[in-house]
């Protein structure tokens, strides 16, 4: 066992990388749930984004283009969810699950041609003097653009929900779709936009796993990150700022357990590997016990909206 080999600076730096896909996916799902929908297809949209981004980046040599197409791929899959739940009034839980099952299948199918291929590297941003600050420079200011994009997006979603008219309308739709409809807001259209945004975010998050975090293609490589993202939305009590906290907590645990494995801590590898999931469950229990009775979830979450009923 060699705990001395764990460098806290590197640990926090890699925590930020590990948390990025979760931040993106959870933020997208947060907006979807704020509009009153529960999309359980995050894992499917992430893995679809992961393969779309990977394939495009490999073919074009441009990781940026990969991320753009990953967002579009995720959004395209999300639109199937939108079509089914908004126009054909299907059950959201079942439809979300179908999205995940389908996404895992279709991504593995496309991914066959990309096994063992190395994607083009996503360059680290050169932030000039910021990167030269001792300790902090290596810890916080030495990442690729997606890490900062995710952080900016957190602030953006927070500000959108809190300060803009659009955010207010979105929340109104999520709290009471009948009232919002009566006020003349286009409930279905607003939700379509939210679903597409959620899909795009999840797709980018998936691409971050396949292009930066791992970086290669293996079937089902998001390995539950989408479900963790769903849990983090609950953990965050549907607040953008707390998504960041939750994702860093989860990222921290998954990075720490990998480091402990490498350091040869006398704990079975399986226990360490399951720890992020176990901790997520435990945190979920604490949060939901505290939320019990208090209405923190959007009131219309998961209910079917039909204008005539």
């Amino acid at each position, binding site marked *: 066992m060699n705990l001395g080999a764990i460098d806290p600076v590197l640990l926090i730096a890699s925590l930020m990388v590990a948390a990025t896909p979760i931040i993106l996916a959870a933020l997208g799902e947060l907006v979807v749930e704020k509009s009153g929908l529960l999309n*359980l297809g995050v894992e499917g949209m992430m893995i679809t984004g992961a393969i779309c981004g990977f394939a495009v980046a490999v073919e074009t040599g441009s990781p940026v283009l990969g991320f753009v197409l990953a967002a579009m791929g995720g959004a395209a899959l999300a639109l*199937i969810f939108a*079509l*089914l739940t908004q126009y*054909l*009034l*299907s*059950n959201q*839980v*079942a*439809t979300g*699950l*179908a*999205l995940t*099952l*389908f*996404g*895992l*299948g*279709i*991504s*593995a*199918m496309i*991914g*066959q041609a990309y096994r063992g291929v190395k994607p083009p590297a996503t360059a680290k941003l050169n932030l000039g003097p910021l990167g030269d600050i001792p300790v902090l420079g290596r810890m916080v200011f030495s990442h690729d653009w997606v890490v900062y994009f995710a952080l900016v997006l957190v602030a953006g979603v927070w500000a959108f929900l809190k300060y803009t008219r659009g955010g207010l309308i979105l929340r109104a739709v999520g709290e009471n779709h009948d009232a919002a409809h009566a006020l003349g807001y286009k409930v279905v259209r607003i939700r379509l936009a939210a679903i597409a945004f959620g899909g795009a975010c999840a797709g980018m998050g998936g691409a971050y796993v396949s292009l930066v975090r791992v970086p290669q293609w293996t*079937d089902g490589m998001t*390995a*539950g990150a989408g*479900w*963790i993202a*769903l*849990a983090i939305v*609950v953990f965050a009590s549907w607040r953008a700022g707390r998504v960041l906290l939750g994702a860093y907590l989860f990222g921290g645990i998954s990075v720490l357990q990998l480091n402990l494995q490498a350091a040869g801590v006398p704990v*079975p590898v*399986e*226990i360490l*590997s*399951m720890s992020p*999931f*176990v901790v*997520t*469950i435990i945190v*979920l*229990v604490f949060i*939901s*016990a505290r*939320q*019990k009775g208090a209405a923190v979830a959007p009131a219309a979450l998961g209910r079917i909206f*039909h*204008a*005539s*009923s």
Partner: protein
Amino acid sequence: MSVIRLERRAAPSRFWSVATPILAVALTMIAGGVMFALLGKDPVAAIRTIFWDPLFNTQFAAYSRPQLLVKAGPLILIAIGLSLGFRAGVWNIGAEGQYIIGAICGAAVGLAFYPADLWIVFPLMVIAGALGGWAWAMIPGLLRTRFNTNEILVSLLLVYVAEQILASMALGLLRNPEGGGFPGSRNLQQYAAASNPELIAGTGMHWGVVAAFIAVIFAYVLLTRHITGFHIRLAGQSPRAARFAGVNPARLVLLCLGVSGALAGMAGLFEVTGPAGQISIDFNVGYGFTAIIVAFLGRLHPVGILLAGLLMALTYIGGELAQFMLGLPAAAIQAFQGMLLFFLLAVDVMTNYRIRFGRGAAT
């Protein structure tokens, strides 16, 4: 108002509730055919290989027909349990984890008796398997009833935990001491007292299939003739009405999760003692997730699930055949199954709504 409108039916249409699964299968064949064509395979040949050849091709049918029951058994057993919960609005989507834990617990009991040749061993293993799955499902159940924790997320996250436990068992505690250090337990098929053999040669029928048939009958009686079944349906359709009718929501959650967990655990046990033979790292093959499709395709009705389980088993076998004969990627079948669920959910709108064309005042 738009040109096409949906009008809610007073009661679900009986005709469409039977016709939608058939329509969904037909649409999936068409869309799947397009997908196979895009992959550069002959769509007609692919569909025939998946749906026809396993049953009627003179060359393969002798091998693949028994496989139908082997694959359908666990799917039906798990889906029956899940359907009770889905009807009541209790979403256990972690059957895969309960399946794994059931197999581990059951196999552990059997291996503890090794090499004693007692008739009681196998029944004890079945009980241990059911208890294992039940206990694993009680985690999300108790967390939901005590702390109001979302059972969807907990049951799903526990699948990843169960997979790690499986790896640990296959490499450690349950590893075959005479296996030369290879991962995996003793082969239970070679331990007569603990094995789950084919009961009638050439049919694929084993104890798990028998259990699945019993579960279908049991669920049918429960849902149509028993007060608990009525409570389950009531809780799903109107939770408020259910509370007025004196249904205890917490007990119903525990019942639904418990039954589905126990059945998934039994399915795992029958699989590990029969077709799979041993606890290994890659023992689980996703039956717990496919069973979700089976439950919906069967419209959460026991008889429907029986038929849906057989159909889904056919796509598994046909998929393997297509992989072997046409070089169709294995993942294509997974996508195909996902597509089936999409189409089913899409056409299901016909059951509860009438489609009206032309302009008119929506009420």
